[in-house]
């Protein structure tokens, strides 16, 4: 059952990646990253067929409190869904933390690459409701993420912890997974792009 759900999820993401690749020209800078992700998902799919259901960071869990379908989540999360899937789950300090991604904010904070709203659970108990997870760029044109932060604006009772030290490890994992597929985008030398020798020397 779990294996079937994992396979359906992988099939959906592989299909969307293939579609996306077929629309892009051969020199599109995002192609190497998408190919790398496609390889990881296809490899996992092969392992599933052999009976290996062990999680990988790109498919750490499928457990969600809501019943949103992959199509609905993909429409709300976009390419983010193709990398992370519906959930990110990791054990930190002997607690199991689960981040259920909900939607991508259309207007992230200034200098944020993008912002995803998510519910965060600790051992299956809701810890932060609708937390905003911001992915910050290394510099203003970089495809890589320098760090990930979370903000919590929901009015209500005091959260369990007065700090987000526990989130530091999760944030690091999210940033590392993102960068794995954006590290290989060739960087344009934008400072000199489109300029003639004369304008550079003057």
């Amino acid at each position, binding site marked *: 059952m779990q294996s079937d759900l994992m396979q359906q999820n992988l099939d959906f993401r592989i299909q969307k990646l293939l579609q996306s690749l077929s629309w892009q020209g051969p020199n599109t800078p995002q192609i190497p990253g998408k190919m790398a992700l496609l390889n990881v998902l296809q490899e996992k799919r092969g392992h599933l067929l052999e009976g290996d259901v062990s999680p990988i960071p790109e498919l750490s869990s499928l457990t969600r409190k809501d019943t949103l379908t992959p199509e609905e989540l993909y429409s709300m999360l976009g390419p983010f869904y193709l990398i992370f899937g519906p959930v990110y789950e990791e054990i930190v300090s*002997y607690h199991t933390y689960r981040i259920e991604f909900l939607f991508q904010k259309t207007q992230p904070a200034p200098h944020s690459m993008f912002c995803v709203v998510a519910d965060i659970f600790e051992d299956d108990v809701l810890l932060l409701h609708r937390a905003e997870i911001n992915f910050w760029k290394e510099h203003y044109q970089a495809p890589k993420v320098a760090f990930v932060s979370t903000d919590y604006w929901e009015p209500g*009772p005091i959260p369990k912890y*007065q*700090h987000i*030290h526990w989130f530091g490890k999760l*944030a690091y994992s999210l940033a590392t997974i993102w960068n794995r597929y954006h590290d290989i985008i060739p960087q344009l030398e934008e400072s000199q792009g489109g300029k003639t020798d004369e304008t550079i020397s003057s």
Partner: protein
Amino acid sequence: MKPFPRDTSYAHIPLAIQQVINASAKRLFQAPVTEPALTVLVTLSHTPKGLLDVLCDGIAYQVKEGNIYIWFQESDRIDTAGYYRLVRFEYVGIPASRKNLKKVVKFTLSAHQKL
């Protein structure tokens, strides 16, 4: 949404790990530091009873080969982030507010011993 219950038991932590933490607590409390170190300050949500209680207040840590490692990350970069070995811990606070003295814990980590 109901207030989140605070951990009052350590049942989620394996017994062997609890024993390592309790055995290390006395040795690491205000221990002298003789090597390059990193510092992490964390404001706790309650007054802790000891190191195990501190770690249960949302600290990201690991226990490996009898040592405790605490998560360290500089505020705006991930390349140096990781679990570093705990060499000292102490309670710090604002002198004017002594009742909060134990609510801020300072971890001193070895800069060279990273998992």
